[in-house]
């Protein structure tokens, strides 16, 4: 029996890790060079508390549960999850009424430690919040993380437990003759499989089409973001700041990042389903972010911007996840429509998928004897080791004393380790080590990282790309 997961985002990789616990054959196919480069890469990176989800939805069912699973996940995968807490701000009585509703909904969803705070207490906690605030819904269990790190960590851990990963390989067809999953055909190979888990994010509708399943009603919703310099803005806020939510969603937020920067966004505009590859920011979008973020935190200085970007998330007409076994195609299992709070819900959905597969298809997965749930992150030396120990470490590994990224203080050892773990592109190095992620955005280190990639992988500089096959960096030699 063989299970094939299509899509290496947060859901796909966490399901791969869950299935990797068992004595079954599991493979994952991802069209990009790396895990987590789609929806998982560009979102608000928030572990939501779970008060926002109406009872009876998949969101309510999996969000608060997923939130709780993150502590164990962080411990096992050695990823950063920081429970910074969140405030939903109200600036008038009408908004205060919305907070009260959210509070009640939170109690129904079993969210612990929710409180409604009054102005003085809010400003004691977060002095830079707009002083016109009248109340906030405070949720201490809300947190922040780096979603791409989870994808990378889950991939490494699943691979160590025997799951087979195929990156840079695109599914182009699915053989479901007789309404039963038989083969998955990619641009490189074809595979006999018994079950397909459709975790293809924005492209889940395309995969469902290939399998001749009923259409999945998803469309892209684009969100733009602005990232501020961590060296100059870190103290502005310490928790996640939401406005009162509206019909279009949770609104534009001010979010601390685990790397101590500040993220502003997202905008929210629905796109035609054909525009799912769009990742462009717009001047209107960026203006809207600045305007709205300043309503929450007036002291934001937009001159401290280091990067702007956009991400698409799959939205469904039901405003809920699209989960479960296909009733039409035997062996086709959808984990799609992962709109907000998809990141928070993902660990719970991964567990549920494992159980649901066994229930639906009458299977019994047996635990692997040698299953190892742990994975260690790449060790970051700067400020994480005593000088004595660091000195000893450099005597063993001289490259631990060679600094590549000046802003985030990343050593050559860290970059080499990222390459050993599968990084082949500049973005893959960036997402694994935070090199090129600082205030100069690679100005001092891009050429060094190009050199290291070229040397370690044994291919010429011209072949190295930013993230996808078309994104070459240099165009040939000046002199032969």
């Amino acid at each position, binding site marked *: 029996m063989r299970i094939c997961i299509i899509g290496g985002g947060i859901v796909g990789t966490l399901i791969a890790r869950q299935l990797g616990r068992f004595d079954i054959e599991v493979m994952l196919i991802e069209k990009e060079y790396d895990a987590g480069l789609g929806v998982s890469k560009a979102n608000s990176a928030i572990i939501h508390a779970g008060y926002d989800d109406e009872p009876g939805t998949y969101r309510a069912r999996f969000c608060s549960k997923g939130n709780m699973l993150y502590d164990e996940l962080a411990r096992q995968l050695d990823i950063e999850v920081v429970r910074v807490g969140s405030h939903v701000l109200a600036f008038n009585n009408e908004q205060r009424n919305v907070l009260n509703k959210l509070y009640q909904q939170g109690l129904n969803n079993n969210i612990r430690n929710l409180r409604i705070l009054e102005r003085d207490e809010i400003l004691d906690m977060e002095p830079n919040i707009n002083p016109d605030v009248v109340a906030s819904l405070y949720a201490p269990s809300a947190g922040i993380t780096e979603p791409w790190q989870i994808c990378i960590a889950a991939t490494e851990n699943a691979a160590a437990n025997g799951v087979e990963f195929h990156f840079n390989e695109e599914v182009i067809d699915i053989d479901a003759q007789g309404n039963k999953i038989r083969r998955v055909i990619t641009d490189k190979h074809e595979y006999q499989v018994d079950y397909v888990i459709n975790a293809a994010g924005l492209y889940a509708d395309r995969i469902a089409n290939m399998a001749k399943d009923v259409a999945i009603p998803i469309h892209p919703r684009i969100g733009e973001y*602005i*990232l501020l310099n961590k*060296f100059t803005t870190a103290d502005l806020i310490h928790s996640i700041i939401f406005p009162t939510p509206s019909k279009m969603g949770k609104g534009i937020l001010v979010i601390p990042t685990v790397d101590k920067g500040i993220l502003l966004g997202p905008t929210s505009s629905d796109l035609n389903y054909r525009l799912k*590859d769009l*990742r*462009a*920011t*717009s*001047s209107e*979008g*960026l203006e809207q972010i600045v305007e709205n973020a300043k309503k929450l935190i007036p002291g934001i200085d937009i*001159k*401290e*911007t*280091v*990067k*702007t970007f*956009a991400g698409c998330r799959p939205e469904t007409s039901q405003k809920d996840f699209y989960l479960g076994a296909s009733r039409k195609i035997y062996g086709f299992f959808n984990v799609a429509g992962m709109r907000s709070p998809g990141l928070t819900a993902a660990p719970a959905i991964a567990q549920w998928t494992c159980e649901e597969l066994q229930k639906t298809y009458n299977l019994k997965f047996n635990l692997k004897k040698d299953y190892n749930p742990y994975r260690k992150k790449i060790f970051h*030396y*700067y400020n994480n080791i005593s*000088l*004595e120990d*660091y*000195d000893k470490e*450099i*005597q063993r590994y*001289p*490259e631990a*004393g*060679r*600094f590549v990224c*000046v*802003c985030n*203080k990343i050593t050559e050892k860290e970059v080499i380790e990222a390459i050993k773990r599968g990084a082949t592109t500049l973005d893959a190095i960036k997402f694994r080590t935070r090199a090129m992620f600082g*205030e*100069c*955005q*690679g*100005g*001092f280190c*891009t*050429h060094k990282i*190009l*050199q290291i990639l070229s040397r370690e992988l044994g291919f010429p*500089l*011209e072949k190295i*790309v*930013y*993230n996808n*096959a*078309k*994104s*070459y*960096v*240099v*165009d*040939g*030699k*000046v*002199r032969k």
Partner: protein
Amino acid sequence: MNRLETDILVIGAGAAGMGAAICAANSGVSVIVVERNPDAGGILNQCIHNGFGLHYFKKEFTGPEFAYQLYSKTKESGIQFLFNHFLLQLDLKNKTAIFASEEGIKLIACKALIYTAGARERPFGSLLIPGDRVSGIFTAGVAQRLTNIENRLPGTKALILGSGDIGLIMARRLTLEGVEVVAVCERMPYPGGLARNIDQCLKDFGIPLLLSTTVTEVRGDGRLREVITSSLDENYNIIEGTQRSWSVDTLVLSVGLVPSTTPIMDYFSIDGKSRGVIVDNCMRTDKDWIFSAGNCVIIYDLVDYVTYQGEMAGRSAVNYIKNGNNPARYPIKKGNGVGVINCSYYVENSDLELYIRVNKPKEKAKLVVRSDNTIIYEGKPSAFIPSEMVRVKIKAEKIDDSFKKSSLVTEIIDL
């Protein structure tokens, strides 16, 4: 772990650091210079064009030649260099800096520290330019590094945003290497670089300079394919209908430098706005034993100026070690018309060397320095442009007669 001791420790072996080291070592104190790169000279090493050293050496050099000339001087002075060393932290209490290198951890105790770390480039992301996130967008320094040192071309057809000197130099450099440079765009109504560079880098090669024009969108799928530019009105707002599409695979940015001060911002004061180290005219920071000079203080036009200021820091550090004095200092304020000024405080009874950048062009004006209402210095009437710094030297005697011990005010008075 390795422990070293020195009288003066210099962090950064660019022009400012070498200037400081030479000056200090010539006074007979011991000097160690620590540098994170494998060689001395900093960014000079990739500036293979000429135009360096006309003031300092009274000769014209290329960047690497200027660096070599300075480095040769250090060889005569017994200065110890440590290359490939990266600053981890400062221990202010013990006047010790801690570095990592492939040899291990090194603790260097000193009597005075001189911080000369230079500047970094403003990245593309800070410009809030909308569009696709693609490869093919380089800061001018990165494009220069790739072309001149890594032997790699950034692309085949380029547009340059920003008419700062590095942008102009790269327009010529890329053209000489066969890259088609379609235009240089500048959002201000006047060029950002030196007049000689406009002539030698753009006019001589027929590259158009589009003033009051900026990039308003970048497009591409993976790699840059198209850049949209727009004209700006006098308030820097986009004039609708002026959008123009350029089919290029490369965008080079020359949009300004920012002093490199984040490694030390927890140890001594920097200016929140310019991000430069706050120093007095002796290049002393708010710690009596720490001095700073060069582009980590303010962004200079010429490496010659950077070297002079490094020398000043070196002299002051020696003076501090030998005499231990910490004389009174008074604020130097920016009055009308002054955009950037090199020092924030004036030390009593010292010669004053000022570097001033006006905040907008002046056809005819004069620079005035006063203490309260008494004029201490009055420059000759002339034209001023922001891209060309004014350098003024005022002798201590001239100031002391009329100094009111409150502050000095610099201003540009229209004539």
